[in-house]
């Protein structure tokens, strides 16, 4: 470890800043704090953080407006907000946010999201060919899926969906993103296709489909692959 990974935490509540600062520092990240949109943009420009944890309810500007601005400067963006409406999450993701955590959050969950967002950012140039999630191995080059060493046959769309999720492990992908990628832009709102394919994958790959551990559903938003 030469230089630590730098994270910028943007929130107008000092208590939350302190809390996140403690948790992230303990996990080995270098943390910068910002209490407003102005400070946040300045910090992004000067300190060039690897990822930004962004609250949406900032005093001087709506956090949603910051998402594309920060994204264009390079860092990954994980939104951490008390706004729990589905539309807010989807808008943030559509604007380019890598993930979304609602308050009150689980610190472990925040760390997992940051890891996923950073992994994607760091590996985006050289995509991983083999993705492992528990017992399941997804070979993106050979287009094959193995569970406990045994090859599992998936239908074309099931594989397409799994591969799309496996290309960005741990990151939530919205319904529209997945449908566009697997079924094509004409089916962007056919959530039904997605549900059926996800059910098929679970039936074939999950130990207990009632307690899914491979593909998690983000209610009304999308799916993520748990790694």
């Amino acid at each position: 470890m030469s230089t630590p990974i730098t994270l910028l935490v943007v929130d107008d509540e000092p208590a939350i800043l302190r809390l996140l600062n403690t948790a992230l520092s303990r996990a080995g990240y270098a943390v910068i704090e910002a209490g407003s949109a102005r400070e946040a943009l300045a910090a992004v420009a000067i300190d060039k953080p690897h990822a930004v944890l962004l609250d949406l309810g900032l005093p001087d500007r709506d956090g949603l407006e910051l998402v594309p601005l920060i994204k264009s400067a390079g860092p990954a963006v994980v939104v951490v907000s008390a706004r729990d409406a589905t539309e807010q999450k989807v808008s943030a993701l559509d604007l380019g946010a890598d993930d979304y955590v609602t308050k009150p959050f689980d610190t472990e969950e925040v760390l997992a999201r940051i890891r996923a967002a950073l992994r994607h950012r760091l590996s985006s140039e050289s995509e991983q060919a083999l993705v492992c999630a528990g017992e399941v191995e997804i070979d993106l080059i050979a287009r094959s899926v193995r569970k406990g060493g045994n090859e599992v046959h998936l239908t074309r769309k099931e594989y397409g969906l799994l591969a799309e999720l496996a290309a960005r492990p741990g990151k939530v992908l919205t319904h529209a993103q997945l449908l566009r990628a697997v079924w094509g832009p004409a089916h962007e709102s056919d959530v039904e296709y997605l549900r059926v394919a996800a059910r098929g994958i679970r039936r074939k790959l999950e130990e207990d489909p009632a307690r899914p551990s491979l593909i998690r559903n983000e209610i009304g938003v999308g799916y993520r692959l748990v790694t």
Partner: protein
Amino acid sequence: MFPYAGCSWVRAANCRIRRRSRPLEAGPSRFTEPPVPDAAPTLLIAASRKRWARVSAPIAGSTAYACGAHNRPVDDEHTPFLAQSRELAFESGGLGYAVSLSLIALVTAVAAAVFRPGNLTNVGLLYLVPVMVAATRFGLRTGLITGLVSSLAYNFFFIPPLHTFIIDNPENIVTVLMLLGVAVVSSQLAARVREQARLAQRSAAESQALASFAQQLTGLRTRVELAMLPCVELGRLFETHAVLLVPGENGLAALAASPADAEPDRIAALAGLRAFEANQPTGLGSDTLAASKWSFWPIASGGRVHAVLGMARLDARTPVGPEQLPLLRTLLAQAGLAFERNALEDEMAMIAQLKERDRLRAALLSSISHDLRTPLTTVLGTLAEIRPASDEQARQLSETRREAERLHRFIANLLDMVRVESGALHPSAEPVDLAEAVAEAFHDLRRGLTSHRLHFDLPADLPLVLVDPRLLHHCLINLLENAAKFAPEGSAIAVWARRLPNGLGLSVLDEGVGIPVGDETRIFEMYARIEGSDRRGGTGLGLAIVKAFAEAMGLTVEATNRCDRPGACFTLRIPEGKLRAGQEVDA
């Protein structure tokens, strides 16, 4: 007395003209005048400018009808232009004959003076002049009589034997016939030209009326102005009484009338209502409720009826004749568009208002939600960061954490209830896999359900359900939490999905004490607490939220006691219409 007498013959003449003229679309001027009753003082025969006679008869109390070859209104200010179409064609009476006979006398004199006796051909040609003048200017009848008189004069004065009406040369019979023929042909031609002129004039007047009506409509903003204009304008154009009815709280109500005191009677009101409901003309002159004195036309656009226009005449005649119907329809369509524009403007304003209210409400809710959640986030986050020094502390920490999580869910419920109560709930349905939904609910509650066993019984071929996933999630969380609250530790909580005769049932079953008989409905009321069941405390909001959310999604929820063992069973019923087969699409 007299106006009425005048009316009756005018009407008779009018009917006759219509009937006879329909097949040929010929002008009224082809027909000769009915006898003018000398005694009727309301009839004016005025020799006006030049040599045209005009006859006008005051009808319906107020307006004079312009008649005569040129249809000049008697009074340009007050006579509606459309009265022309009701005109009665009178050919000029005595004047035409006087002029024709004078011409014949003149021609006879000139011919006698100029031509040598025996130059019959030229004299015959000369007689064409009065015949053509009479036929083109005064119509067929005058033309024919002039032709006859001309031929008689020609015969009497020029055809040998002179000064008798006897014709001994068959050639001269041809001349007489030719004179008559010329009279017929030229009067026909003249009549056609006159008719075309009349039509052109009428169509110009209609276009002008339409244009001015449309222009006036565009300037209007309020509904009352919008209602007044068709009443006044159509009342003036068709010279009827008019009233405009719009839907009110108790059926139709008059929004405007012209004159202001015009009011339809009971049967007319019924006809108006019928016109509004059926979107077709009713009342006098139609197939529906023809006994009414009023005729009603719907003012509609895009299949939606905005108002009904009623028209009636004092003399109880059909207010608008068949030849005027196209114009009336166009005018009503114009009015319909204006009404639609007005309605759309109103809707836009209302939507803007609603949007603003929704925006404020959403802002308020989001700020309350933010203010309540932020401290909780700190509490929960800090609890997670504390490393317990002893088992005792670890137990306390987990207890505190569980309570904080409960507080969080309570706040969520409270905010949800405010959303329900304030109408800020906007369900957006998407196909949801029930197995996924149940798994998510369980995932969120995993720390609160550790002391219960969980059974899932969800068939693999469950159809997808069209509901709002977040609302369903909250329903399930509350049902599971409710089950965990009332079931003894260590007992089982089961989630079942079953096909029902007309849909799907998703049930949460516990092994608690069950629901007291008679409380199956009350249990869903806000802050309802079942006696003896407050041992674990509860907000009393959970089940009320389940009910409100289920109803917002078009589902129903019911509580029963289990048949197989003690315990309660809460079932969300999903109607057949919300099920999607969920076929594999692998194209």
